[in-house]
């Protein structure tokens, strides 16, 4: 949260209360406040798609508020009429006639001068895995497969630590360049990639997936993504060419151990 924006804004809204503004001004203040909060108040900044969605909902809600009972509606009508007709509002009226076109013009200027960017895309985060993959000639059932070393966690601590250490070595040899030192998807090469490498520290990525799903993603990489949400632009290599089956399971252990997350358990087969 950006307190330099949020605190003054909240104070301004509270201050406005004491001025007993008309309903119209009050709605406008809320609308502006919501927009400023969403656009500048949240860090890191929200994508404009979500700001648009939220503002549409908020605009509808404020419009409903202003018309939800007869008193408010007539108050709005009255203040609108006063604003347009009464002499004391004339400077404001003229002011808005100047300011609104200026704002629109400024926005047009901003859009025309900004650099061209690739269009925003919705990303399918959890593409449906195939039920079975062929890993170096061996068939692996993605829906049922489990990490063969996971059970060591409770039984043989030393052996388990060995596998995690093996995974660590593999990670720093192969994965770190894109997925980053802290697994936040911000490695050295990540700045050249779109989509960004997956952020494993995010509680909604690997923590929501089964280990077999990760195995599929690592083994088959970008080329192995399903057709259903094509075109894909993932630069993830298919690691089955480089890493063996056990090595992939090791690095999966390391991903969870480093981030402190737990894999999603296998559902009981029915």
């Amino acid at each position: 949260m950006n307190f330099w924006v949020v605190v003054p804004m909240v104070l301004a809204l509270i201050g406005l209360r004491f001025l007993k503004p008309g309903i119209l001004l009050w709605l406008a203040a809320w609308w502006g406040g919501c927009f400023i909060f969403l656009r500048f108040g949240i860090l890191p900044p929200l994508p404009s798609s979500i700001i648009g969605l939220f503002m549409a909902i908020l605009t509808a809600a404020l419009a409903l508020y202003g018309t939800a009972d007869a008193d408010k509606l007539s108050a709005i009508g009255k203040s609108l009429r006063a604003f347009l007709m009464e002499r004391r509002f004339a400077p404001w009226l003229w002011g808005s006639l100047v300011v609104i076109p200026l704002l629109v013009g400024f926005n047009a200027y901003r859009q025309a001068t900004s650099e061209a960017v690739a269009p925003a895309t919705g990303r399918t985060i959890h593409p449906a895995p195939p039920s079975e993959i062929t890993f170096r000639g061996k068939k692996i059932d993605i829906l049922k497969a489990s990490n063969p070393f996971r059970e060591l966690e409770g039984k043989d601590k030393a052996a388990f630590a060995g596998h995690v250490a093996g995974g660590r070595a593999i990670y720093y040899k192969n994965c770190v360049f894109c997925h980053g030192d802290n697994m936040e998807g911000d490695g050295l090469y990540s700045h050249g990639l779109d989509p960004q490498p997956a952020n494993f520290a995010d509680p909604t990525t690997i923590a929501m997936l089964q280990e077999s799903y990760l195995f599929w993603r690592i083994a088959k990489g970008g080329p192995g993504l399903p057709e259903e949400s094509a075109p894909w632009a993932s630069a993830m290599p298919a690691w089955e060419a480089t890493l063996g089956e056990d090595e992939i399971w090791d690095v999966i252990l390391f991903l969870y151990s480093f981030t402190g997350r737990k894999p999603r358990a296998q559902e009981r087969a029915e």
Partner: protein
Amino acid sequence: MLALAVLAFLTPGPVRAEAPPLMKQSDCLACHQPDRKVVGPSFTDIAGRYGTADIPKLVQKVKQGGAGNWGALAMSPHPDLKDADLGAMIGWILTAHAPGANPAKGPDVIAGTKPGQEAPAYRNFPVIGSRVAIWIVAQLHLMFAAFVLAVPMFAFIIELIGYRTKDERYDHLAHEFTKLLSTSFSFTASLGVLLSFLLIFLYPKLMSYMTAIFGWTFLPYVLLFFAETVFLYSYYYGWGKFHPKVHLLLGLGLNITGMGILFIADSWLTFMNSPNGVTESGELVNRWAAVHNFTWMPINVHRIIANIAFGGSIAGAYAAFKFLDAKTDEERAHYDWMGYIGNFIAISGLLPLPFAGYWLGKEIYAYSQNMGMTLMGGAFSWLFIIQAVLIGTLFLAVNYYLWLGMERIEGAERFRKFIKYLLGGVTVCFLVWATPHSLVATVEESRKMGGAHHPALGVLGVMSAKNTAVNILILTTYVSFLLYRRGNKKATVPWAKTGDRIEFLIFASSAIFVIFLGVLGYFVEAKVRIRLSVPQVAAVLFAMISVTVIDIFMFRKAEITGEIRWGKIPRRAQYALFLIAITFTWIMGLMGYVRAGIRQHWHVYGVMRDESINAFTPTLGFAAKVVSVTVLLFFGFLAIIFWLTGLTTSADWKPRKDGQA
């Protein structure tokens, strides 16, 4: 007329003597046509100038290409073709197109019309393609069918209420609802016939397979349809002509036959989603298992509930239409009340709907995890964001209608001050409910966020947050309803204050409980998290039921402080009713697409592949457009139905007094 034009478009023109296969494999036909000059001269012109003696010369000419003989445009060289093949091809050109080569030819036949010939696997629908054609017609048929099934359900219940309470108003209302029925019934049947024709014409192979599996269900379907027709018209035309009990029995028969038809039709389409009772290659083993497949019952239940919600909202829209058109206060009062009841029915259907949907989703996951993932996490998950926005809109509109409804109640002004808090609650829940998990972002934006998930907003995108938001939404809407109900009443029981406090406590504690479980969901395993939704729902249901019970006792001998002035609702509330109906229809179209679309390139999932040119999954934008066009078409038809229904009460035509017609 339109049908004729379409047929004329669909049938290919007459064909002449077949070209040899070599001809079709090479690129001759790109520049040469039999009778027409295109880039190069027509075959007929060539055969007019040269004879078979010129073949060796022409073979060399084709191999080398060149220009000058027919015009300035050069023919490309064809060095790859063998001399013998070229000879055969040129021979065919010269002989088959020579003047008088086809003297006694029979009439030109239309291809694919030979008796006994095997049907093609697919035919194509012009311009929009077979898939979109079937899509739109099936969806329209379904919307009308849903309405025709729903109206008898609540007409029957309202009539029953009228019979038990001896309140004539209810009987009239039920009768008015059934007025909408007869026209819609004919539209449903016509659209059903159109759908069958299109399916048989466009997808012959699929239909022959489906007929092989389900042919035995056709007879009961048709018999039920006849029975439904008899029940429907005797119910409608026989209003007031029978003993009320006999008439109610007719209504019951109408409902049962309608339900039977729904169940049979559902078995066909659910079989396509989750085939059962067949071998891996698709041969039928067990007839009943094919009907009773994994998603059959969930779809049946989901559709019945959704039909009630949808039907109620459409009936509400009808009332709103009549309200806005009303000339007298009496009419306004009547249609205001009808709109209120329609909306009430829609809400009663809406509230249990998520649970039916949850069951359906669970069965889809259990049947095929792949299909489930595609549905909720993969290609189709964005449609659920649109659905979320539409459902949020529904809740906003419903609450708005209730608040505006308080205008017709004397004394309800005292509750106006709560509106802003209720609205705040609904809006916050709506925002959470509509937040996508992975956001649509440009590269710049996603770099700043560190991925497709926003660190603060991402947590609102997962199931725990959604479940919490929707439960609070339901709870808030219920509070709006409660305030509405209390509008003109003042409790006189001595424990009224305590009662209020207890109700408040129940609401507050269930809301806190729901939020607590929602937050807890982030800290437990997925297996546990999924189960948390059950106590959340239970808490909300408990709050709603217990508060209702307390309220009933509290307001038993309540003092009536003002009357309900039906018809005094502002006109803008009627537009809220329209919005509700349109939103319902839209959701229905969207979810209908999701249900059918998750099969992707399968006709029958895992059994019969879609091998037509339409076997792609449309982009979300395209799908949304088709759904929107369908919704528009539906409301176009509905406007006709409302108009036709209005004719029954409009004044008779009379010749003018001056004797002119």
